[in-house]
């Protein structure tokens, strides 16, 4: 079955500390993976996707096929990073499958 697992419902870190949001996937073949973010009172929006190999707002995510992971990382957390983060997978049927999400809380 194709699925996305985000093991942490809540992650709380201090401002300036490194952040790592975990994501594991189940997929046969070469996956296409995304991170979506929802800030308070805002719409769900795309943060980054692995095919773009880009850094957005200081966040990066590397696909590790051996560990079937796509963890989201940022070296120094900022208060404005507090949000709900969803890892997502493009299925073989061209549908987006979302994980259950991790709430990131940055403490001042």
């Amino acid at each position, binding site marked *: 079955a194709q699925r*996305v697992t985000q093991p942490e*419902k809540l992650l709380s870190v201090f401002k300036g500390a490194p952040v790592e949001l975990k994501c594991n996937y189940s997929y046969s073949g070469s996956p*296409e993976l995304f991170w979506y973010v929802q800030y308070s009172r805002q*719409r*769900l*929006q*795309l943060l980054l*996707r692995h*095919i773009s190999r880009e850094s957005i707002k200081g966040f990066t995510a590397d696909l590790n096929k051996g560990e079937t992971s796509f963890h989201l990382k940022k070296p120094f957390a900022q208060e404005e990073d507090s949000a709900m983060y*969803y890892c*997502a997978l*493009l*299925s073989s*049927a*061209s*549908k*987006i499958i*979302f*994980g*259950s*999400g991790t709430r990131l809380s940055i403490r001042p």
Partner: protein
Amino acid sequence: EAGVAQSPRYKIIEKRQSVAFWCNPISGHATLYWYQQILGQGPKLLIQFQNNGVVDDSQLPKDRFSAERLKGVDSTLKIQPAKLEDSAVYLCASSLDLSGSNIQYFGAGTRLSVL
């Protein structure tokens, strides 16, 4: 550019009542999606349209849910009759076309409470 518009923002109904949600996608976007997001879960795709045709409705509970996009632009999602477990946020999204790599743009959602 204007974003995906959804209405209403909130709806409270009693079980066995009917409810309808409306979505207007970004102009020029051929593909429209309806998602259901239950509290504590990620969005789950209910139905996907390409223009006015259904591409995927495999996860739509067709005994009570229906959706249409008659003119290939705006869309309505209906629940009749509603059950308690239908309480959720219903998200509409649109993208340029069917390519899974296209960015999906989401609306603000409709929060449905079934009492």
